[in-house]
């Protein structure tokens, strides 16, 4: 079934079936969900790579589809993350209150995603966006908190409204047509600037970038454990999609920085992306909840994507697109590992956990590989994308962006290490003595993602060639890729060689290790304690306020953004109370008066 | 008024107004000792605390086996008027017990535990005065009582080295002037770096 529309209809249909099935038996419904997502993934993968999907089937009125490399690239990554996460459902759904609707909403949001990436009209894009927002909004509060959903919805709506306004401007500008390709091409002058800004607001809100990031840790931290990987690995990438539309396809006629050969608008966006990187890194270092920490890391990586798309050359775009893939895999892997831990321990707070490695070694490895990729260290995918972005930034001579990019890269090393040390390593807590490794069905996606993280780091050439198609589609020249090596603007990188050399190094070290005298195995509690007899493993586990000396340096400045938004929320609430007081008074007559007044006002405009 | 002579007068006046002083002792220009009745201890301490002697420097006991008494000593210090005040009281040596001063000086918790450990004095009012603090796994009578014989305890508990007879020095020549002069010369040589003067 290679038709996009049929796939969407299929998802809606299976959603309803899985609703009924889940009502009857949770496990069965969840397995059904896995198979439906798998079907969609396989169809996409079978037909989509060369854009052979069928666009002619047309049952839905007013909705037509077109295929682009760009849309397909996003779609396949996100569907893949959905597929991987759906393996987790059978083990989690029983905890949730409205478990029967969980699978339905999950499949519906996937339908929305397919629609959003393949549609050819702005209005449908907006419609599918709303579908995604509304379905996910009901998924998030299944975790713990309703506030999370409110915060997520608030920022999403702000983004949608901005996008809608932008769409209206394009609609007016393009001779009353919602077509995406012609609409973006026809923009010029002030209209272009307006649409640029409005679309970027939408992109920043979805991506959780610097000024609009507050919802990200709240929603990620409180979402259901299996949904966090989707949020971070897949859904924030919608923002990247809009960012591509805005940053690459609209070039507003602002001035140019000749030193950097970059439009001012793009440079300002790059600076905002840099702020996002630095802010996300600092906040992630401070965070105690593992999921919130990873959420802030998503914010920081969103900053990388924005920086990559605002440096106007093919190298940076390749880095940006590759980073989307690498971060989706890394972040999904990390969140899934945390979810597996949370399933057996019931908490994601780092100060309550420790020594899980002895019980869950495979989950530990999955997390390790994911964070190596996230920190951009060689044998994993994150290194390739960061290297490409560095090349572009250095080549353009963007010093201040460079500070942020390097800071984020080293800082990511700090914050990803913290859950590793606090959750998995360190002393083994007595309260978790009985826990077991995740079941085999949850380990399947873990292994697949581990493998892909390594694959993207060792053999990036094939994927980069595909990305070259996208870049070509956007009107830029791609990068030079040979079988093993990537050519940057000022150097050449051979990831396979690096991995091989690393493997040789490890082999040498292993031989040295094996040849020497065998060591004596001792207990974890038998450590150097300055000769004190310590009998409580909690006293020997250093995880609370891990980076305390560093945190102290920016403690005072850390929550001014939250304060700003809290104040804003208070103001909005006051405004709402005023409106309520004016319009919703108990007196029926007042309400009727206002309704009539507004009707007259609207109709009057029409009549005149 | 930081003159310590005046401060001494002040303390004397304060304490004598508060309670009957059994014995008084001027230890030095900054230290005074009063012996009071056991029942007055809490009163005296609280009066002194409110007068500025806020710091309980030490709490311990002295064993007087001849009188069959323990003397409990509280040492207070005032940071504004630098005078140490010792408040002493004698309690019975059989079943020694004195009420805890925890409500007045919360820091006395560990001093009282120490006093219990070394003298066996009970401090009702201190919830864990019986817990071990310093001596780990002690199995004898409290060690600072005068009737405890540390030497016998040491002989019993810790094996000592037994020297064969020929290890001990019997040769008188070993201490002769000759050897001493030789040692002196060697030290001199070392000091001057081997140079003859």
């Amino acid at each position, binding site marked *: 079934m290679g038709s996009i529309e049929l796939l969407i209809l299929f998802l809606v249909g299976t959603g309803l079936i899985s609703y009924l099935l889940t009502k009857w038996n949770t496990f069965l419904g969840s397995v059904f969900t896995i198979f439906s997502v798998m079907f969609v993934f396989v169809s996409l993968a079978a037909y989509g790579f060369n854009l052979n999907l069928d666009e002619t089937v047309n049952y839905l009125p007013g909705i037509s589809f077109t295929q682009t490399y760009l849309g397909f690239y996003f779609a396949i990554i996100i569907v893949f993350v959905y597929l991987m996460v759906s393996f987790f459902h059978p083990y989690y759904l029983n905890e949730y209150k409205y478990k029967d609707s969980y699978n339905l909403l999950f499949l519906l949001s996937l339908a929305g995603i397919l629609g959003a990436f393949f549609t050819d009209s702005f209005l449908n894009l907006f419609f599918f966006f709303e579908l995604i927002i509304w379905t996910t909004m009901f998924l998030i509060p299944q975790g713990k908190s309703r506030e999370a959903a409110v915060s997520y919805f608030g920022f999403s709506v702000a983004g949608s409204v901005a996008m809608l306004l932008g769409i209206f401007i394009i609609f007016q500008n393009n001779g009353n047509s919602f077509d995406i390709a012609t609409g973006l091409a026809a923009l010029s002058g002030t209209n272009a600037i307006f649409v640029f800004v409005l679309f970027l607001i939408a992109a920043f809100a979805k991506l959780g970038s610097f000024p609009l990031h507050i919802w990200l840790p709240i929603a990620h931290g409180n979402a259901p454990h299996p949904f966090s990987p989707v949020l971070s690995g897949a859904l924030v990438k919608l923002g990247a999609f809009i960012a591509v539309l805005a940053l690459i396809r609209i070039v507003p006629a602002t001035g140019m920085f000749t030193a950097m050969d970059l439009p001012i608008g793009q440079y300002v966006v790059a600076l905002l992306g840099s702020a996002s990187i630095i802010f996300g890194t600092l906040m992630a270092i401070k965070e105690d909840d593992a999921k919130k920490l990873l959420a802030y890391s998503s914010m920081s990586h969103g900053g990388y994507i924005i920086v990559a798309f605002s440096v106007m050359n093919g190298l940076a775009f390749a880095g940006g697109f590759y980073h989307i893939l690498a971060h989706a895999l890394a972040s999904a892997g990390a969140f899934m590992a945390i979810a597996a831990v949370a399933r057996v321990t019931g908490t994601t707070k780092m100060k309550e956990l420790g020594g899980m490695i002895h019980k869950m070694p495979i989950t530990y490895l999955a997390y390790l590989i994911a964070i190596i990729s996230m920190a951009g260290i060689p044998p994993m995918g994150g290194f390739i994308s960061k290297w490409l972005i560095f090349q572009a930034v250095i080549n353009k001579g963007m010093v201040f962006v460079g500070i942020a990019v390097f800071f984020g890269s080293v800082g990511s090393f700090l914050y990803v290490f913290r859950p590793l040390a606090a959750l998995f390593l360190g002393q083994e807590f007595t309260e978790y003595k009985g826990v077991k490794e995740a079941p085999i069905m949850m380990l399947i996606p873990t292994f697949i993602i581990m493998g892909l993280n390594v694959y993207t780091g060792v053999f990036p050439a094939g994927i980069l060639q595909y990305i070259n198609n996208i870049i070509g589609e956007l009107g830029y020249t791609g990068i030079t890729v040979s079988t093993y090596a990537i050519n940057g603007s000022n150097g050449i990188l051979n990831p396979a060689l690096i991995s091989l050399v690393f493997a040789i190094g490890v082999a040498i070290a292993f031989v040295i290790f094996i040849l020497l005298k065998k060591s004596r195995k001792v207990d974890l509690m*038998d450590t150097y304690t300055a000769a004190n007899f310590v*009998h*409580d493993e909690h006293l020997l586990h250093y995880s609370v306020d891990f980076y305390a000396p560093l945190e102290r340096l920016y403690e005072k400045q850390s929550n001014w953004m939250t304060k700003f938004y809290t104040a804003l929320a208070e103001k909005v609430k006051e405004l709402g109370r005023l409106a309520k007081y004016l319009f919703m008074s108990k007196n029926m007559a007042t309400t009727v008066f206002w309704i009539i007044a507004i009707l007259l006002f609207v109709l009057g405009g029409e009549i005149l | 008024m930081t003159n310590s002579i005046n401060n001494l007068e002040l303390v004397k006046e304060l304490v004598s107004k508060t309670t009957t002083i059994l014995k008084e002792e001027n230890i030095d220009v900054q230290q005074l000792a009063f012996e009071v009745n056991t029942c007055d201890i809490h009163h005296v301490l609280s009066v002194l605390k409110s007068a500025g002697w806020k710091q309980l420097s030490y709490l311990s006991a002295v064993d007087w086996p001849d009188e069959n008494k323990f003397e409990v000593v509280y040492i207070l210090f005032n940071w504004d008027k630098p005078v140490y005040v010792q408040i002493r009281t004698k309690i019975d040596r059989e079943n020694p017990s004195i009420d805890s001063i925890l409500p007045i000086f919360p820091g006395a918790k560990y001093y009282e535990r120490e006093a219990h450990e070394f003298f066996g004095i009970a401090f009702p009012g201190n919830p864990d005065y019986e817990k071990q603090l310093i001596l780990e796994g002690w199995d004898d009578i409290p060690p600072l009582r005068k009737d405890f014989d*540390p030497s016998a305890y*040491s002989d019993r*508990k810790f*094996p*000592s080295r037994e020297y064969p007879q020929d290890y001990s020095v019997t040769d008188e020549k070993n201490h002769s002037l000759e050897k001493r002069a030789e040692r002196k010369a060697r030290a001199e040589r070392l000091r001057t770096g081997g140079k003859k003067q």
Partner: protein
Amino acid sequence: MLSTKFTPKNKMTKAEIDRKWWEVGDYFRRNSLWLLMYCTGCCAVELPPSMTSAYDMERLGMGPMATPRQADILLVSGYLSLKTLRRLIYTYEQMSEPKYVVALGSCPINGGIYHDSHAVINQLDQYIPVDVYVAGCMPNPESVLNGFVDLMEGIKQKTMNGWKRYHDHFEWYKENQKNSLGEVIVHDEFHQ
């Protein structure tokens, strides 16, 4: 004349090979002795002069180390109270083998001036094996260094086998420890 016939070399047994390697290791071990200074008593003041410019311990390849895992020598400097002895035994057991014990001053030998105290033990080698004693109250830096040189010589002669003795006579040592200390590892309320 070279023979083409295959002649088996007289092979060394595994024990012999091990012994050869051990001798090679001994060379390294005696030239790089790292100290764990358990500054239990007053003899510790003799260590700074023996480490710094005046006597320069580093020329013998010796130096202070931070933790028992890294160190080769457990340096007991001075008297040992009961509380300290517990921790000393714990530390000694944490060290990696081969390990040596050097005791400074007269207190570990026979109790010294604390021979009749209720809190200080009299003879260290009843509890852990001591390889070198340096007598004196306190021993001056020359004798401290002399003690270390003796230790090196002893390692060369394979007489410094304290850690092996501790393995072989483990029950005997434990018995002595138990008699004097009760339990070695105790619970205290501050580390529960």
